[in-house]
């Protein structure tokens, strides 16, 4: 089974701090994602990465950055945390490779989530 591990289940930080959320997957997946989950808004994509050192902005990248130095690890960074970044953060991974120009019907595999509170 695929395992996606997020470093913390709960995290409390102060406004202005630099915050690191870590995610590791053990299935050699090319694609990794960071989402933010808020009530009534579902999952919103912050950033994704399709290979080592490659990253693309998602729908809500402002205030965040990411790092992917190794294939299995994808880090989300809050450069200067603010109270409106209090949320649940989900990491996910999936296979990228496909044949004949099509993606696979592979689902995303999620971590347990990190509930981040910024005071």
């Amino acid at each position: 089974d695929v395992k996606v591990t997020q470093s913390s289940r709960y995290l409390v930080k102060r406004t202005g701090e630099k915050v690191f959320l870590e995610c590791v997957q053990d299935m050699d997946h090319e694609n990794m994602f960071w989402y933010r989950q808020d009530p009534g808004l579902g999952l919103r994509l912050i950033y994704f990465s399709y290979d080592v050192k490659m990253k693309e902005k998602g729908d809500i990248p402002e205030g965040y950055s990411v790092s992917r130095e190794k294939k299995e690890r994808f880090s989300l960074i809050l450069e200067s945390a603010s109270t409106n970044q209090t949320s649940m953060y989900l990491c996910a991974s999936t296979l990228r490779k496909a044949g004949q120009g099509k993606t696979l019907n592979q689902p995303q595999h999620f971590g347990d989530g990190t509930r981040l509170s910024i005071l």
Partner: protein
Amino acid sequence: AQTVTQSQPEMSVQEAETVTLSCTYDTSESDYYLFWYKQPPSRQMILVIRQEAYKQQNATENRFSVNFQKAAKSFSLKISDSQLGDAAMYFCAYRSAVNLYNFNKFYFGSGTKLNVKP
């Protein structure tokens, strides 16, 4: 961009009964995948069922089945013989099957909270 809409923020069902969760999506593509995910309270989000748009037959996984209406862009989830363990947030998701730039985003709905009453 594709949008996924779940119009029922919350639903309740009696244990052992059947419930249907609704999902609609908007796309101009003809080939794509649809997924239902389950997120139990304080637990990991997991895949419930998936459907490939080019397949007319509705997907089924034990007590979970879908009603896929491609023309109507509708993808509802039916849970039969509901169990207490089915209580969770359920998310509908869309992914294009066309492999542009070696990557395709997943688009998620806002979720439906399912309560199961004993």
